């Protein structure tokens, strides 16, 4: 199973943190620190896998954001890269040419999308269309304070 997924910028600012196991705040902070340090220190053309304690760390850079996945040792690293890519595609479809700012200003949406794709450290849905449709339908359910759906709910 996957243990965590982190998104952070080139300056090490955290943009999203998803934890699939129960951990104390302190442990989480330490992991975030370690991951950002390790990943940001990597040479540009190195391979995307690292060993950290008993976990495999799979990371990929998309524009200004690093996507970092911590998986257990029996997981398939090459597939983990595909998982990261799939998530980026989902974000891209939803936001339309997604960039870091989208994720900063709509972080809750990024979480909602992630929660339709992954759950409990495993993949929940392998079809892009179904994930997108679920998100759109959920969005429709949101009672808004404004008259128009396109205005942000909060």
């Amino acid at each position, binding site marked *: 199973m996957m243990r965590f997924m982190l998104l952070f910028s080139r300056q090490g600012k955290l943009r999203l943190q998803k934890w699939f196991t129960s951990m104390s705040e302190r442990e989480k902070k330490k992991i975030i620190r370690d991951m950002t340090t390790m990943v940001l220190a990597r040479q540009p053309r190195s391979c995307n896998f690292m060993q950290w304690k008993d976990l495999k760390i799979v990371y990929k850079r998309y524009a200004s954001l690093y996507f970092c996945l911590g998986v257990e040792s029996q997981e398939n690293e090459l597939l983990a890269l595909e998982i990261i890519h799939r998530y980026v595609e989902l974000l891209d479809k939803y936001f339309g040419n997604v960039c870091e700012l989208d994720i900063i200003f709509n972080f809750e949406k990024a979480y909602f999308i992630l929660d339709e794709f992954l759950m409990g450290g495993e993949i929940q849905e392998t079809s892009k269309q179904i994930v997108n449709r*679920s998100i759109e339908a959920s969005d429709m359910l949101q009672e808004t304070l404004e008259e128009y759906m396109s205005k942000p709910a909060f």
Partner: protein
Amino acid sequence: MPAPIRLRELIRTIRTARTQAEEREMIQKECAAIRSSFREEDNTYRCRNVAKLLYMHMLGYPAHFGQLECLKLIASQKFTDKRIGYLGAMLLLDERQDVHLLMTNCIKNDLNHSTQYVQGLALCTLGCMGSSEMCRDLAGEVEKLLKTSNSYLRKKAALCAVHVIRKVPELMEMFLPATKNLLSEKNHGVLHTSVVLLTEMCERSPDMLAHFRKNEKLVPQLVRILKNLIMSGYSPEHDVSGISDPFLQVRILRLLRILGKGDDDSSEAMNDILAQVATNTETSKNVGNAILYETVLTIMDIKSESGLRVLAINILGRFLLNNDKNIRYVALTSLLKTVQTDHNAVQRHRSTIVDCLKDLDVSIKRRAMELSFALVNGNNIRGMMKELLYFLDSCDPEFKADCASGVFLAAEKYAPSKRWHIDTIMRVLTTAGSYVRDDSVPNLIQLITNSVEMHAYTVQRLYKALLDDISQQPLVQVASWCIGEYGDLLVSGQCEEEEPIQVTEDEVLDVLEGLLVSNLSTPVTRGYALTAIMKLSTRFTSVNRIKKVVSIYGSSIDVELQQRAVEYNALFKKYDHMRPALLERMPIMEKTASNGPTEIVQTNGEAEPSVVEAKHPPPVTQPTNQANDLLDLLGGNDVVPVIQTTVPTKPASAGGELLDLLGDLSLSGGPAPAPATSVPSSQPAFLLDGLTSPPLFNDIAAAGIPPMTAYNKNGLKIDFTFERANPNPNIAVITIHASNSTEADMTDFVFQAAVPKTFQLQLLSPSSNVVPTLNQGTVTQVIRVLNPQKQQLRMRIKLTYTHKGSAVQDLAEVNNFPPQSWQ
């Protein structure tokens, strides 16, 4: 009360902050506003406030005061509230907070909600962070949803069930009925999560595994699904670069792996599909390779036929040649796993693997190094070592220690010749000398000692290396030890293996003295150097120069050096007659377990002093073992001396002092304190109870204990006289009196003794080593025997001396001890 600012407004504002302090100020202000809003129980804007709180939490600020608000949001009827509430619960709450249990009821209600998206939220939250208590309470609901026909809910319920099983394994049974027709679903989401659920069950319970193999005929079902995935045409919904649902394919392969492991029937049922996947999968993109990778792992783990295994290894071999670094990395990792079982197949790719040593990527280099060492065998040792030594030369410092250790291990196992072995060691020491591990120094010394015919060659090469470079401490230490030991071979130019160099004694001493004064030398190295110089006093003729050096260091600031120098000085002055015996050539060290001296490392508990300690042969640490050997009637002819009167032990006592100086080490029973030194500087404490100065010559007959003759042969007579040491009645003090009734002196006389295991023996220094002719005098020596169990005293003695030009050696048993001596 004005409406609280919007989330995006807040984000924008915070991002304008130019310093950390400014940001903190804004956040504090907003937190205060949010807190007062919470206190007012404002339902309208609670959602907005919690969302803002979650943003601030992501920046690293505390947000625990929002936990209860999340619960209120979850309980709300509005979907927007619930969405944010559940998100907040997943981020801020977990099983460590007691509050989290309050969620259980809400989740239970939401699991039965009319809107599937609400049910979905509840399932997701439960499946991500549900505690064991929550899981126990809600497992029934999850199980119900696992049987629904709604695929959206079914897939979520399946993963939720996985989480429940992980948290509360005992509940696994209750999900079994629901799994019956999970795999007949068409929906890929359900299929995928079902496979995950089945995998989890099979991994956790061998009973489940057996059940699924036999009763459910899971393997054929999975094979069928996989086949459909591969054979079916383009499906836009699940296509990734031309491959249909790679995620599902990989998951199925993994479950097949578990089902096929150790089971012939299952493995056979999947052979075909595995071969098909292995040969048909498109390899141009990462996706295809991900599937191939999983296939290879499955083939290697199950009981596949050999053709399939070869196919798998060849796939890995192709991976090694791939341009993509990730794929090369993954190949090396897999090969490392399979190298034990399919050694020959992996050997075929050895040259590619060795090429990976030159890769620029650090992760790949490390894997390649590990794999290379695993591939070394008797046939390829020369070639492989060349590559590995080249790697050692050029690799990053982080690799050098591991690589050096690996080289030593491989060389030890497969060295084709002693000369090659020594050369390899030399090469490592000169290229990576500073990275070599501490315990390699004693290991190498032992190795060198054991290669008797290579001594001259070794010392010559080491000497030449020292001339070049004295900065690498392990090299310098080994070299000084060797020069001290074999310096005579060096100056006599006896080398057979290569052109002997012309070296004078003064030149050698120059080098060693250079080590003593150099800033590059550590204190440990200086210790080695000083001891080496001292040893040369019996091998070289220029003793005066050595005496001078030794006396200079008697006032060294370094206490370790000072002690050594003082003791060596004493050796020159008062005990010169013992010097040759003390400093003679080291006997061949026996290897205990894999590397003998490292045992000394462990018992002493610290690497540094043991480097000093460990260069002494096991006899120093196992006197009682040798005693046993001598008493073994079958095989008592060991060359190894029993008690260390003839083995140079001075550094051992110095080592002992070093340990004392460090203070915090506990000396375990055997090693350091035990060595009985001939120079009475440090005595094991227990034998010294109550005594201040050790009695060297004790001719006084023990009160009431009659003397006895222990040995009388060839004109040599040895009498024992007894005394009880006070206040410890368990110690018997025996003085031997050796007399010579022949017409010629017995010179180089050495008396050694051994006692059974339950005793402990200590030999003090003899009065002299010449037993004068015609009973004109006696040689006396004191033996102290500790006999805590009051057993009958027995002793085996060994006598060596030179008589009329020839060396004489004799062993004898002494059994006629008077009862009073041991009762």
